[in-house]
């Protein structure tokens, strides 16, 4: 067994614990969102294997463009690579809302915010497992011990929450009419593209390796601030549930 699997298990354990704790302490009646943490787990595997991979492969086959991304790559192909994940992943993360167990959380305006957060974090946890599987297939990582994968752990934990915030932003608009739904979805896709842009720009030779994580951190910061803005709107529209209060005077 390669060392990535114990680190992946630890990542998923910490990520799930943090997700459950934040849903419980941050939202209104938060434990009702816990079951949604299961729904998004297989979606990363499905969208990568059934949609993104075949689509990019089909483009490469039909156009004859080089599959590797480097300074000589065509700009349209770099843009395709950059936008494929944001477009399809942000859509697929909303897919569980077709199920009644998730759909009932869209009953009120803004109520999709926390359900979206749970579904997005669930997708992120599944993606951590899928990426660990990919790493385990690479010969150069076969003999690497677990403790050298701490970079994977920290990056994946950040991305679990980023996926959560992005899906929360997109889902918050679902019960507010199609204009707001499309706007929020485009915001989520744009922030997702920003998060992924560092690695693409580095491959194109436009930014040095040291700056690869900078767009990801910027995307997380903007996503947190926008999520906080939406959370306040949700709070103003949602009656408080089961908050025990003892008023002395």
């Amino acid at each position, binding site marked *: 067994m390669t060392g990535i699997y114990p680190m992946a298990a630890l990542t998923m354990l910490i990520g799930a614990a943090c997700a459950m704790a934040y849903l419980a*302490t*941050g939202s209104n009646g938060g434990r009702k969102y816990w079951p949604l943490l299961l729904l998004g787990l297989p979606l990363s595997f499905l969208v990568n294997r059934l949609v993104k991979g075949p689509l990019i492969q089909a483009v490469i086959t039909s156009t004859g463009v080089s599959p590797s991304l480097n300074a000589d790559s065509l700009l349209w192909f770099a843009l395709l690579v950059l936008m494929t994940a944001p477009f399809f992943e942000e859509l697929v993360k909303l897919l569980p809302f077709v199920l009644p167990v998730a759909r009932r959380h869209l009953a009120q305006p803004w109520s999709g915010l926390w359900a979206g957060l749970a579904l997005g974090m669930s997708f992120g946890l599944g993606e951590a497992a899928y990426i660990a599987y990919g790493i385990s297939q690479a010969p150069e990582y076969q003999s690497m011990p677990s403790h050298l994968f701490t970079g994977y752990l920290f990056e994946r934990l950040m991305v679990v929450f980023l996926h959560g915030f992005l899906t929360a932003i997109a889902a918050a608009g679902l019960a507010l009419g199609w204009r707001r739904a499309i706007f929020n979805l485009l915001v989520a896709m744009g922030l997702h593209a920003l998060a992924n842009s560092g690695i693409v720009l580095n491959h194109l030779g436009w930014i040095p390796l040291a700056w690869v994580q900078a767009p990801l951190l910027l995307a997380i910061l903007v996503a*947190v601030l926008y999520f906080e803005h939406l*959370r306040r709107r949700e*709070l103003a529209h949602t009656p408080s549930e089961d*908050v*025990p209060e*003892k008023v002395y*005077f």
Partner: protein
Amino acid sequence: MTPIVFKPRPSSGWLTLGGIGFVLLVYSVAILASSISANTGLGFLWPILLMVGIGAVFIFIAAWFPTMRYVLYDDTLELIYGPLLRYKIPLAEIRGMRRRDLRMSLLSSMRLPGLALFEVTYGDVGKVKMCSTAALKGILLIETEHGLYGITPADEEGLVAAVRARTGK
């Protein structure tokens, strides 16, 4: 009247704070030692020193944990955390007191499991000046003309009764 001193409810907040500080210190010293022994140079010294500084601050704050107390004078309630924090609340400005659980916000603040200090933004009630041994659960909120204060006295009923006796509310 003689000032009455109320202690906060016990918590492991000092352990959370000190533990984070200890881990940061040990981690940074280990990186420093390994780079010196491997002779890889000290080009990244400033982030290590920053980590040492943050770790030391955390331990410094944790060391004052036992000094947290609430002192009730004739006309003032003082919330004290060593030399680091001292909120004076004139009793005449107190509009109400209530205990409730608070909702977490992601905005940055000095709020850890078992400890909340200084101004903390919460998801439901907004900004609260905290001096408490809990971050979210069972916070006694003191509503004043100049905002909210959050405390966790061990003898909550006793503190509220003493405040009401002095204010006549």
